[in-house]
């Protein structure tokens, strides 16, 4: 009896499954969160009053 194969990924899928492990994804998200904090503080310094 033929065993069922794994479902193939669609060729136009934006994010390939399984190629990035969660650790690196979480690291990237952490550095991005830090970037957002730094940029937000910077914008608080330079935005015109009443514009933010």
């Amino acid at each position, binding site marked *: 009896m033929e065993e069922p194969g794994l479902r193939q990924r669609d060729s136009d899928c934006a994010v390939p499954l399984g190629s990035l492990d969660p650790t690196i994804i979480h690291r*990237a998200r952490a550095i991005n969160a830090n970037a957002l904090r730094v940029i937000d503080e910077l914008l608080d310094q330079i935005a015109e009053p009443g514009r933010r």
Partner: protein
Amino acid sequence: MDLDGASLRSVADLTLAVERECRLIEELHHAVLRQREAVVHGDVPGVESSIRLASRALLTLQENRRYRATLLQRLVGDPAQPLADLDARFDTVLPEAFLAARRRMQSSATEVAEEVWRNQEVLLGALREREALLQELLSGSRPTTPGDPLPPARAEA
């Protein structure tokens, strides 16, 4: 407060500091775009490299911010003086070079923040896709998500 010779020199130094921050924001922007491309292509070394680039840009931005605070202390006696309100401290208009650098920093910072938010969504999508794949491998069927079409039997019901 008058913009005397000493103040003008401080404003010139401040302008250079703001221009340096603009370049660092551009470096961060580059790292963020590189990160997204690497995630989309499943390129692990590319993601690692983008994390290093972003970390370096952020560290230098924070150093530069401390330097900007010392310049503001020298100029107006307040290291926390917001750049947005600096004009109100002087009787005359600040030099155009400073005003232009400040505008550029604001637009660059706004743009990069939008790109970082987009990356956060892409990364979250990558995590969810991975979870869905694991579910599929363990249970033999993929869990239904809001975007998935209904299976034929349920769609006809």
